[in-house]
């Protein structure tokens, strides 16, 4: 069944030689059978013919081309790009670098890389767990307790005490005073200036305090429990 609109659409293909030989022949036969299509086809062909005539007529004179070429040559010379600018940069050469490797070798490299990656990832996932386990958990820790324990410490204190001679002699002449007085004298004598007037005192009766109270804050794993 002939359809003029379909034929018209295909006419462009026919005019611009986009159809095969068989298709062209078939379409031409169909066009020939329809006066409207034939008129359309001739009109389109006529337009193309007129266009081609105008094309030829519009071509410049032969004398135009040497000047055109000279102008183009000059334009290119004036605007010529520098060679270095157009050279491929080193990083691009690196990116486009190709090394032919046999398929088995490439496969082995890929497998090795995958294995190494897997191992590295595995180590990375295990290591943090260990460190976490070793670290004490502050949240679960019980607060420290304070216990007072008696500590007995014996310490021998030796001290050289100098006392004034005169005072000693006076003391000797006097009757034996109380123990408390004897102790007080060497302590004050040590502060005096050295010289003949001083003599070494004895601390045989010196009684340092024999007990001390020491607070020890101690904590162990058992205390926490």
């Amino acid at each position, binding site marked *: 069944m002939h359809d003029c609109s379909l034929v018209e659409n295909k006419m462009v293909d026919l005019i611009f030689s986009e159809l095969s030989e068989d298709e062209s022949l078939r379409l031409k036969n169909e066009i020939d059978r329809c006066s*409207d299509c034939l008129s359309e086809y001739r009109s389109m062909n006529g337009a193309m013919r007129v266009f081609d005539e105008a094309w030829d007529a519009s071509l410049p004179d032969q004398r135009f081309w040497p000047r055109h070429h000279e102008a183009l040559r000059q334009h290119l010379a004036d605007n010529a790009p520098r060679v270095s600018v157009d050279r491929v940069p080193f990083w691009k050469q690196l990116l486009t670098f190709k090394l032919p490797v046999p398929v088995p070798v490439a496969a082995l490299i890929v497998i090795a890389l995958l294995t190494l990656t897997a191992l590295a990832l595995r180590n990375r996932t295990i290591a943090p767990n260990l460190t976490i386990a070793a670290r004490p958990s502050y949240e679960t820790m019980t607060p420290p307790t304070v216990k007072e324990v008696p500590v007995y410490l014996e310490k021998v204190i030796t001290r050289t005490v100098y006392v004034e001679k005169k005072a000693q002699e006076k003391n000797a002449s006097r009757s034996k005073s109380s123990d408390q007085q004897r102790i007080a004298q060497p302590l004050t004598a040590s502060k005096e200036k050295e010289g003949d007037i001083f003599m070494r005192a004895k601390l045989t009766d010196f009684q340092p305090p024999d007990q001390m109270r020491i607070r020890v804050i101690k904590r162990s794993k058992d205390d926490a429990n």
Partner: protein
Amino acid sequence: MSLNESQLIESAQGGDAEAFSQLARRFERRIYTLALHYTRNAADAEDLSQEVWLKAFRAINSFRGNAAFYTWLRQIMVNTFLNHKRAETVRMEEVRSAAFENDSTNVDDGLSFMLNETPYQVEEDYERRILVEKVMQALGHLSSQQRLIFLLKHREGMTYEEIAKAFDCSTGTIKKALFRAVQKLREQMGVAPAPLELAQCGAGQK
């Protein structure tokens, strides 16, 4: 590609402008004529064709020789033409003045085909001028894309696929644009379908 052409390309890729201009000599007429019909103006055509060549020179290192040099150059030409904004401006006054005011001193004009004519040729040449002007005006009624598609198809002989690839669209779009371009040109050039003295088509009228 001849050996000479490949040598010129190689030299041009090394930055030799003279070698590239020698290469351009082979295709400059083709490029200029297309530019002339695309812009419909001799001065614009000169600028546009120079722009094409300069772009090609700057990109010559990207030419790998996988396709013919002209195929590569044509893609640059299509892109340059489509980006040429001034192509949209219809300046038929300039075309008219270029066509009619041409004399022996105005040899810069691309339409200087009327030089040194004999008295016998005057009438014939005048008709040619009218024809050229009419066609240029008709081309001005097409969109820049339609015009370029039409020129690439009709004058360059590119296939639908090649044009579609160059324009980055489907072949259907190209075919439609071409059909419309032909219809418009026919209308503008005054080539209407003439009634024929044949039996009318009985089947399937439009």
